[in-house]
């Protein structure tokens, strides 16, 4: 399961500058946008769309490294065995049939119509070669293949993947970077240049990679020979450029750029009043959480619950995100509910202990929990790096702690060091909590809640529960959606009961487009499906 925290803190570095440059936006206001996974279908075509990325892609070889910038581009040129829908479900695509045979084999039957750029059919050999490349040691998607024992061609257009154990998230993962099918001849011809500005694109998709001018732009052109007329692109060219969020906002406001998926939701606040720009929000898995460390001040789950009960999430959403984030009770956004959505919604609504704004009874319960657990000897330390959202959250933690009779203080670390909390136990031992935006790339709660297992890499707080570990294993093996959903709900309940991490706010995917453009999904689907194919003119004759 490929899960990632958000991009490097550098992506947020311009936030202060952003607020200054768009000073006309005044103080953050309470804003709520109706969320939808899609935007209106276009009425006409466009010649060129200029789309902004938060940074220049480091590489376009997604086995080298995935990331927001490179995925935003390559989702349009490199299609996968499964395809992610705007609603964040996974449906068969290059594999027109994909399913389990017994508990230990996945059989993929390929779409015989599918071809690479030069018209060569996509065969089982190509799929086997691609999957082996994804599974290779050090490849960014190798962990998707952790349970895979063998990948074999079992027909000209059929591939059988044998597993050591049933792995329910394997098929949905094939809609992600681990399911890309490559034209091996192109990659072999490219050699080391593949993925660099000198490389070519080795896939199939509605767009082809036309040019990557390092430091300047990446250009995609519609693939006229694309095999799937239903998914063909409407717009001829998509030009990707990149800049800090403040510059992106200015470019959107002046019409120099036609659209962007914004890295920080707060960046959209000044655009909300701009009639030439439309802002959309849609489902994502992103949640800002307070991640607990092994330091031990909050070792007692009662203290974690107490802190959660007293946290002013609504205020954080308004002060740090201009109202474009939502107080949230679990560490996984609703975009993670890729199946049995109604069941997950119902279970979410039943979660307690993370109020949007603590009421008197919440605070009473919190104080009672503190009284029964006893306050730690040393103050609780919450990390910040001075970045606006983290500053607001850290101050809210200190405030919440004081309200319920705990002592808390903020420890500020350099922005460049913040990411080291994930790799450096010494650094973690200096704080009890660090706030970070966390997202997963697969839309299955099991993919997140496995992080509570006692051997999980990001379970620093010492939360151990043998039943939980057992549930994780069962859930990963449960290939039946309804059954897996029940297990996931139980995991969610236990995680929340122990408050392994303290959830803060959910940040939907935030899309800004010029008023003349439409058709892009407003959900996190832009990271793995050919979202740009839907782009077009909002009204006929706009081109």
């Amino acid at each position: 399961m490929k899960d990632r925290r958000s991009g490097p803190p550098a992506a947020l570095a311009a936030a202060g500058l952003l607020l200054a440059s768009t000073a006309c936006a005044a103080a953050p206001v309470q804003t709520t946008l109706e969320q939808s996974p899609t935007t209106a279908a276009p009425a006409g075509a466009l010649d060129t769309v200029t789309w902004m990325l938060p940074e220049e892609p480091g590489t376009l070889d997604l086995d080298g490294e995935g990331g927001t910038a490179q995925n935003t581009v390559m989702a349009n040129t490199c299609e996968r065995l499964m395809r992610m829908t705007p609603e964040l479900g996974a449906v068969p695509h290059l594999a027109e049939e994909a399913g389990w045979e017994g508990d230990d084999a996945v059989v993929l039957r390929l779409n015989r119509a599918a071809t690479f750029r030069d018209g060569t059919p996509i065969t089982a050999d190509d799929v086997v070669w691609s999957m082996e490349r994804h599974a290779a040691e050090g490849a960014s998607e190798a962990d998707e293949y952790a349970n895979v024992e063998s990948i074999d061609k079992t027909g000209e257009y059929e591939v059988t993947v044998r597993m050591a154990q049933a792995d329910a998230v394997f098929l949905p993962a094939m809609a992600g970077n681990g399911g890309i099918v490559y034209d091996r001849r192109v990659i072999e011809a490219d050699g080391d240049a593949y993925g660099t500005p000198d490389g070519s694109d080795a896939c199939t998709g509605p767009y082809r990679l036309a040019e990557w001018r390092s430091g300047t732009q990446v250009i995609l052109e519609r693939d006229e020979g694309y095999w799937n007329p239903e998914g063909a692109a409407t717009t001829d060219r998509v030009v990707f450029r990149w800049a800090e969020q403040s510059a992106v906002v200015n470019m959107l406001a002046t019409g120099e750029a036609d659209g962007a998926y914004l890295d920080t939701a707060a960046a959209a606040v000044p655009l909300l009043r701009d009639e030439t720009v439309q802002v959309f929000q849609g489902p994502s898995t992103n949640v800002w959480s307070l991640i607990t460390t092994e330091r031990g001040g909050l070792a007692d789950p009662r203290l974690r619950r107490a802190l959660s009960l007293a946290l002013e999430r609504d205020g954080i959403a308004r002060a740090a995100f201009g109202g474009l984030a939502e107080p949230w009770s679990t560490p996984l956004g609703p975009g993670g509910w890729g199946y049995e959505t109604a069941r997950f919604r119902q279970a979410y609504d039943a979660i307690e202990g993370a109020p949007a704004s603590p009421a008197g009874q919440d605070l009473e319960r919190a104080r009672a929990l503190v009284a029964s657990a006893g306050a730690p000897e040393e103050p609780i330390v919450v990390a910040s790096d001075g970045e606006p959202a983290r500053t607001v959250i850290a101050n809210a933690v200190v405030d919440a702690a004081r309200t319920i009779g705990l002592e808390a203080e903020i420890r500020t670390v350099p922005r460049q060091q913040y990411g080291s909390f994930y790799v450096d136990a010494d650094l973690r031992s200096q704080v009890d909590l660090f706030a970070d935006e966390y997202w997963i790339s697969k839309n299955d709660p099991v993919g997140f809640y496995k992080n509570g297992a006692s051997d999980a890499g990001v379970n620093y707080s010492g939360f151990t529960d043998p039943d939980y570990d057992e549930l994780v294993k069962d859930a990963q093996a449960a290939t039946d959606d309804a059954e897996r959903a029940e297990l996931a709900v139980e995991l969610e309940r236990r995680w929340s009961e122990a408050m392994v991490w303290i959830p803060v706010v959910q940040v939907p995917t935030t899309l800004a487009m010029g008023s003349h453009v439409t058709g892009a999904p407003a959900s996190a689907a832009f990271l793995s499906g050919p979202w740009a194919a839907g782009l077009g003119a909002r009204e006929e004759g706009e081109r």
Partner: protein
Amino acid sequence: MIAHALRRLLGMVFTLAVSSLLIFGAMYAAPGDPVSFLVGDPENVTPERVAAVRAAYHLDEPLIVQYGLWAAGAVTGDLGTSFQYNSAVGDLILTRLPATLALVGYACVLFTVFGVALGALAAVRRGGRTDSAVTAGTTLAASIPSFVLAIALISLFGVQLGWFPVAGLGEGLLGRLHHLTLPAIALSLGSLAIVARVTRQTMAEQLDLEHVTAARASGIGEGHVVRRHVLRNALGPVVTMCGLVTASMLGGTVAIETVFGISGIGSLLVGAINTFDFPVVQAVLLYMVIAYMVVTTLIDLVHPLLDPRVRAQGSRA
């Protein structure tokens, strides 16, 4: 002469070697760890994986060994491979350099032309209202941080009036000029103020000298006096100042590039520092040292051409 050039060259090489070592040491002493970026997915972080990544990038070696590896490559022209972009550092810098050079070049023209003109105007009208206006204006201009000015310019001329693009480089010469006008103004205004003040000061000193009085007394027109006797003699300090300002600009475009979304050396450096892309940081900072040395050397070479007195001293030495 050859000995002088050789000595100078050796001095530069020594400076480069020392500064590269200092930069290298400073980067490793800075808080944070490139592994947090290199390792990627936090859920894959295991002590073994961290160790493997460290070994792959030689981060587990002692500082001096790492420096040695880098220096050995650097002397053969291999500046290493970027951690973040996975391509040759030399190529990365070469693709970013034109943007920064164009921006600095444009800014140079602006602050030289307008700075010298304003300074000369103030000197000639010394004590008058023009002089006061220039002095007050340049004092104000010198005190505005460039990024604040940049934001104000974007807000007024980019977003509200729509006269200039707010980001990027543009295509073609005219497109580039159009795109770089606001950034160049933002970058040059503070320097323009400094150059204007230096020009005013040195010209004012010249105006008081005897040879100017003598020239005037001999009936030479005022315009000619100012051009031939005052400005010409004042050029030395002005050129030196312009050169120093340019040298500092070659490494000081970070804020402007960030605000205007220009992929130049400055934004490359910021990105590299934030992601601990050591090879890139090292190379960019060295580029800055080299740029500084080249510009100051050029000033030294140009100086005697402008001022015969310096030339005479040079020949005696």
